[in-house]
């Protein structure tokens, strides 16, 4: 057993851990809960890597309240009941002080009752459709309005767009997001949606819709297609002779991670609306990218969600230190107003609704699979998970 550090002695365990969490004089245990097997492993691997990096860096700086972070990793296996079961195991058996985890909305919805019942703290990294806010969750990704509205405003102003064709995979996130996009296009920008279409998850044939797009000639293709379908869509778009340097396309579902599979040559010239791109030119990000590559290899790419996952452990550390306690209720209460100046995306702050204030950025895909930053909002965008006028 290591001797407790001076800092840990200032914060005796009995005082900082009144609710029986896995906190000792020298260590605090957290959980990592993502899919490393199954369909979602493609997406969730980056988040696991980012969270492990953040934990390692925090430990190198002396840990949290003088205690080293130890993590227990569980595999959600791309199966939502498994997520719930593993969440319960982490909270009830392991008594973890917080959990970094989940990726799809379905997995988050599955674990939410568990976190609320057993009073846990979840740091959730993915951009998602909104319409949720829980005391037991910190949403480090963007809710839908943060990802959509500024991007549409930009495309109207800069590209003079008048008509939009909305596409998506057929499940809750693309449908809710396109609903918000349509309301914004029609009611606020007073422009026109010429088509809206959804495809079953895993769909690999897009030639028909590409013909329809050719027929209706929209100024902007707005695409929220996910997973393996993404690759098929962009390959077929390119094969059909639609040049994204001439046809404006905006997506909120393709990060650098996805381009790895799609191939830069198939999406070059397309625009993505995110809060983070690996190419962001600021000192925080340069240090983050260098550390990430040092830990996980030179070839790795970092997407929007990976960066948001990296924020989780840091925000938790800052919150615990502000609260002076690991207790879930105190951490939840101390969360609003927490600022993290070292974020790779730049300064972020936690809102009262447990989402993050963050900037919206538009990037343009390059041949090498990275994005060039084209535009960023001047101010942090306020998170608004229950947007009025968009429902």
């Amino acid at each position, binding site marked *: 057993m290591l001797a407790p550090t001076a800092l840990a002695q200032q914060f005796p365990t009995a005082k900082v851990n009144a609710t029986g969490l896995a906190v000792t004089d020298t260590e605090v245990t957290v959980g990592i809960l993502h899919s*490393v*097997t*199954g*369909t979602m*492993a*493609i997406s969730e*691997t980056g988040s696991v890597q980012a969270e492990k990096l953040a934990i390692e860096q925090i430990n190198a700086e002396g840990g949290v309240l003088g205690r080293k972070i130890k993590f227990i990793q569980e595999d959600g296996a791309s199966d939502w009941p498994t997520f719930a079961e593993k969440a319960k195991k982490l909270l009830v058996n392991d008594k973890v002080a917080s959990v970094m985890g989940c990726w799809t909305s379905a997995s988050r919805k599955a674990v939410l009752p568990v976190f609320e019942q057993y009073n846990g703290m979840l740091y959730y990294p993915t951009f998602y459709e909104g319409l949720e806010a829980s005391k037991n969750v910190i949403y480090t990704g963007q809710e839908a309005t943060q990802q959509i509205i500024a991007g549409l405003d930009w495309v109207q102003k800069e590209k003079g767009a008048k008509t939009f064709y909305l596409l998506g995979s*057929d499940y809750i996130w693309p449908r809710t997001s396109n609903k918000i996009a349509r309301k914004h296009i029609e009611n606020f920008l007073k422009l026109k949606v010429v088509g*809206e*279409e*959804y*495809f*079953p998850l*895993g*769909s*690999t*044939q897009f*030639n*028909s*819709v*590409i*013909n*329809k797009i*050719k*027929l*209706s000639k929209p100024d902007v293709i707005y695409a929220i297609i996910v*997973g*393996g*379908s*993404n*690759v*098929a869509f962009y*390959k*077929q778009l*390119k*094969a*059909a*002779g639609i040049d994204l340097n001439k046809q404006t396309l905006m997506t909120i579902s393709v990060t650098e*991670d*996805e*381009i*790895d*599979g*799609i*191939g*830069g*040559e198939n999406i070059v010239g397309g625009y993505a609306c995110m809060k983070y791109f690996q190419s962001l030119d600021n000192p925080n990000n340069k240090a983050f990218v260098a550390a990430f590559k040092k830990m996980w290899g030179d070839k790795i790419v970092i997407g929007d969600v990976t960066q948001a996952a990296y924020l989780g452990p840091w925000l938790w550390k800052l919150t615990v230190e502000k609260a002076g306690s690991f207790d879930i209720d105190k951490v939840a209460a101390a969360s609003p107003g927490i600022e993290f100046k070292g974020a790779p995306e730049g300064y972020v702050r936690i809102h009262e609704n447990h989402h993050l204030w963050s900037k919206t950025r538009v990037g343009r895909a390059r041949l090498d699979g990275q994005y060039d930053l084209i535009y960023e909002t001047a101010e942090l965008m306020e998170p608004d998970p229950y947007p009025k006028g968009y429902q």
Partner: protein
Amino acid sequence: MFGDYSLAELGSILVMQGFSGLILFSVFLLMALGLAIIFGQMGVINMAHGEFMILGAYMTYLCSHLFEAYFPSLYSGYFFVAMAVAFIASGALGLLVEWLLIRHLYARPLDTLLATWGLSLIMQQAFRSTFGAREVGVELPQWMMGSLPVAGSIEVQINGLFVMGLTIIITAVVALLLYNSRWGLQVRAVVSNRTMSGAVGIDTRRVDWLTFGLGCGIAGIAGSAFTMIGSTGPTAGQLYIVDTFLVVVFGGAQSLLGTVASAFTISQSQSTLEFFLTGSMAKVLTLLMVIGLLMLRPQGLFVLKVRR
């Protein structure tokens, strides 16, 4: 929706849409051929069919890197080598799997379903451990990308043409093998009456072994070709398996012609419906149509008449 367009524009869209249907037809047929051989001729339900395809896709990925690194001057032709490698790799693995696993289960068709499903999980995890959980991008030589202008605003995709050509060749080869070779004769004999074939001296074990290997090899070629239009990842095989079974079952499990006809019917109705409705609705209606027809003809479109 047609008000603002000239007749010429509408005409060219119609042609391109017809072409999309033909591409879809080729894709369906190509992915179903391997399964049709295995399912139809041997009665084995191979749930790992998609994974054999993805093995072919990964071979293509490896070949593209190999050629880029060692034979950059031959890069434009690497795809043909890749398809051959994919056929050999998937075929060889198929032979091995048949020998290790399938041959013990011929008398228990439902167990092959479970066993091959397990195999598909094992293969997925093997891909994940070898190539990583992320999807990999397979680069194509320049000549295979883009589209050919035919006339006016009509354009056809080069990779679509390629898949169509490939499908025609492979279907022709399979038909030739089945109906004009000694092996084909034996296969058809075994399908008609396994016990009797054995009695007249056909080595049914060997026929099964080769049939399974050939089916898997064709899956490998299909997977290799689909790197042009789809994704290559550990679980990408799952994207194809449902459509594949649909085509085979709808066509009548034991008939090559049935597979062709069923791929054509399903692809054309889906592609037409997709154009007038939305992607999801087209899928729903196509499935309803298939269910309806299967209720009327439970054996599928074409049935092999055999006296048992």
